[in-house]
């Protein structure tokens, strides 16, 4: 029975609001389910391509001259399946998130389109199809990043992202066009067959250009700056898709073009990949450990993980170019495992951050806190993601990192100075990223979710709706599988490895059973057994703690010890900035923070202070030291070139005639 309420200027009449709410609900459900359904399709298609026969499809009429060719092998199938799995979780999550955040119709429509474009990229079988799918993916992601375009920061982040994406695309375009011209065809199969005849100079050019273009998409240094700008401003399901699925496309491009099609490369290819990977990993995790914006922290963590994956790829390439194919297979398996684990825990982390953002409106860790009591489910989910990101045992990322370290330390270094120098440095880099990664994740989880709320918005938080929790639970289940039962991935990894003969694919990789055994090397690990043993040990410790139980007085809940004061205000807690301040001091030569302290005195007396304002800014040093000079140089050059455009029509006609003459001469 409805009661007639008077119309007020601020509250719309209930009878007008209900159908709109129902419509929004229906639209969100539709968008989310289509995304999830596309994800299921992707997983099915990808797995069938990995375990079954590769699939070919040619649609001649879709594009003039070359047509559209789809060619899904085990490698492409792996990435399609990974993207699909991420999309399922994100799709279910988006049902609730879109309603909570009142998404307009356009982002709801673009979300499944974005997923579809991402599924097309690994399936592309020719240069043209690849570039087409790549641009579709980039355009869809740009539109989604600009979902909240009424905010100025979103617009500037979107512009930055657009420029960098197109610069990367230009590099990829150039590389693939050169490759296609040298390889004698448009289809990847044709190029791969003819790759023996490509000259060394062309291969180098293609390698460097693809490293630039695909590396930028994957978030590697120095072209990573779009990641920490675009991810915080994009809606959280989109950030999850971008970080957990789209950056994988950069890695896919590197593997497909440089490792699979161009075949075994010289030593310096592997070395270059390792150098860029290690730099990205260390820089990314360092920035993450001092970031106070939750999503910026997660974005830099993506740079770190993609750096580790690239390091593993580089190690595999370098080792196989020296003939150590078994160890190269181990490194490649580690890279694939790291990609999957990263997809799982990064999805979960961004979905958790989105849940927090939807509940509090805050991304700033300095203002969050106390969410463990108000949002217990989200806290558990984010805790699982943080554990996975930190690379500790029982986390999703542990097995991949373990395998990577094992492959690095078992490289054959006798009589090989290059390996003997690079492998210890790489192990040092990986170990350093693990240490700093722990700091970053402890900060994100401890400051953001534990203790007491640092602001009124955090205090008013309430738990996320069921669909959001369901999406997160799916990602958490994947994290759990990677943490304790990576044996489930054994067959998948074996098949994909077999499709990469140039990085040791013919050799047996590590055996992934109940124990992970290394082939031909004494080394084994069992994450499942560690988990069980740890649970037993913790129970034993709890039992030790119960000794003397009968002598104890009754338990009590008491106020915090405030050093004698009556109570502690929430402002007395450590914030994320203060937590990371010692680390920032240690690395301040790299981070170059800008601090500004402003002291306001009372008008009556210069000796009494009324207010002190402290401002600190941690900009991306690569942006400041590399991009700004480059952009300045390009702008100066552009101003100089403007002199050739005075506005005279006669001059422009002369330019046109000259251009036509040059074209005629060249094409003779």
């Amino acid at each position: 029975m409805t009661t007639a309420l008077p119309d007020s200027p601020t509250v719309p009449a209930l009878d007008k609001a209900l159908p709109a709410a129902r419509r929004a609900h229906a639209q969100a459900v539709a968008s989310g389910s289509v995304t999830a359904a596309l994800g299921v399709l992707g997983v099915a298609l990808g797995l069938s391509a990995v375990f079954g026969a590769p699939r070919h499809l040619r649609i001649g009429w879709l594009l003039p001259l070359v047509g559209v060719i789809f060619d899904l092998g085990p490698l492409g199938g792996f990435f399609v399946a990974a993207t699909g799995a991420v999309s399922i979780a994100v799709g279910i999550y988006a049902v609730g998130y879109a309603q909570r955040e009142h998404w307009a119709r356009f982002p709801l429509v673009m979300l499944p389109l974005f997923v579809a474009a991402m599924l097309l990229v690994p399936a592309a079988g020719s240069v043209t199809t690849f570039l087409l799918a790549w641009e579709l993916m980039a355009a869809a992601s740009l539109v989604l990043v600009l979902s909240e375009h009424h905010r100025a920061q979103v617009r500037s982040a979107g512009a930055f992202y657009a420029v960098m994406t197109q610069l990367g695309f230009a590099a990829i375009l150039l590389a693939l066009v050169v490759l296609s011209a040298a390889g004698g065809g448009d289809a990847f199969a044709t190029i791969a067959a003819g790759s023996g005849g490509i000259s060394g100079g062309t291969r180098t050019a293609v390698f460097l250009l693809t490293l630039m273009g695909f590396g930028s998409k994957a978030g590697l240094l120095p072209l990573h700056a779009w990641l920490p700008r675009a991810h915080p401003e994009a809606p959280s399901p989109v950030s999850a898709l971008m970080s957990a699925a789209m950056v994988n496309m950069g890695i896919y491009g590197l593997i497909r073009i440089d490792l699979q099609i161009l075949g075994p490369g010289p030593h310096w290819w592997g070395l270059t990949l390792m150098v860029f990977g290690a730099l990205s990993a260390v820089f990314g995790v360092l920035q993450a450990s001092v970031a106070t914006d939750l999503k910026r922290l997660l974005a830099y963590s993506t740079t770190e993980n993609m750096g580790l994956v690239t390091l593993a790829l580089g190690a595999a390439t370098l080792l196989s170019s020296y003939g150590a194919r078994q160890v190269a297979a181990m490194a490649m398996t580690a890279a694939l495992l790291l990609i999957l684990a990263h997809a799982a825990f990064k999805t979960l982390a961004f979905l958790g951050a989105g849940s927090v953002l939807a509940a509090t409106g805050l991304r700033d860790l300095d203002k969050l806190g106390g969410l463990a009591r108000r949002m217990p489910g989200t806290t558990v989910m984010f805790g699982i993601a943080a554990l996975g990101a930190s690379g500790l045992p029982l986390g999703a990322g542990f097995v991949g990192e373990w395998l990577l370290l094992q492959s690095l330390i078992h490289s054959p270094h006798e009589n090989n100075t290059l390996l003997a120098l690079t492998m210890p440095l790489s192990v040092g880099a990986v170990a350093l990223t693990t240490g700093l990664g722990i700091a970053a994740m402890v900060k994100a989880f401890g400051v953001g979710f534990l203790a007491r709320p640092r602001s009124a918005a955090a205090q008013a938080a309430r738990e996320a709706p069921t669909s959001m929790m369901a999406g997160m639970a799916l990602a958490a289940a994947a994290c759990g599988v990677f943490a304790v039962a990576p044996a489930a991935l054994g067959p998948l990894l074996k098949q994909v490895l077999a499709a990469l003969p140039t990085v040791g694919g013919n050799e047996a990789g590590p055996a992934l059973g109940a124990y992970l055994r290394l082939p031909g090397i004494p080394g084994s690990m069992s994450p499942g057994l560690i988990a069980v043993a740890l649970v037993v040990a913790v129970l034993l410790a709890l039992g030790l703690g119960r000794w003397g139980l009968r002598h104890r007085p009754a338990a009590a809940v008491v106020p915090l010890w405030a050093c004698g004061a009556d109570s502690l205000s929430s402002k007395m807690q450590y914030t994320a900035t203060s937590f990371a301040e010692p680390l920032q001091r240690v690395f301040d030569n790299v981070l170059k923070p800008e601090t500004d302290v402003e002291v306001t005195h009372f008008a009556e007396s210069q000796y009494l202070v009324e207010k002190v304002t402290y401002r600190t800014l941690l900009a991306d040093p690569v942006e400041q030291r590399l991009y700004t000079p480059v952009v300045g140089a390009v702008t100066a050059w552009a101003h100089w070139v403007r002199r050739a455009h005075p506005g005279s029509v006669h001059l422009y006609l002369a330019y046109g005639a000259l251009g036509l003459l040059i074209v005629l001469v060249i094409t003779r």
Partner: protein
Amino acid sequence: MSWIAKIGRVGRIVEPADDAPATTVAPPTGVGGSLQLRHVDAGSCNGCELEITGAFCSVYDAERFGARIVASPRHADGLIATGVVTRNMHQPLLNTLKAVPEPRVVIAVGDCACNGGAFARGYGVVGSVADVIPVDVEIPGCPPTPAQIIAALRTVTGR
């Protein structure tokens, strides 16, 4: 490295221990030989603090009888309070005692803590420690010597 020679030369400087006095207060929790105390200065002139410091240093070494000063009242079995209770320290003293887990003891050191001493009727004074919280052991003196402090501690630790 002349320190090693010096350590050898100086040797043991701790005073020999007397016989254990009778236990007047049962050790908290019934485990003898372990007493951790949180020191609270409720308004003292610091004379008793110097003597307590002396009691825990190398010459008197209260630690060999199981007593120790700890930083947090949560880690402590009780308070060792000095000084008369001033108005400003009244509530903090109560808060500190509340933060100590049961079972707990309170030891009042010095005349000021026992009965107000020289400051008994001051305008900023609430009273002696015994007026504010229940006291288990009193050590009179202005200030009491470290030997007296240790004798009193031993009546609690039983060692």
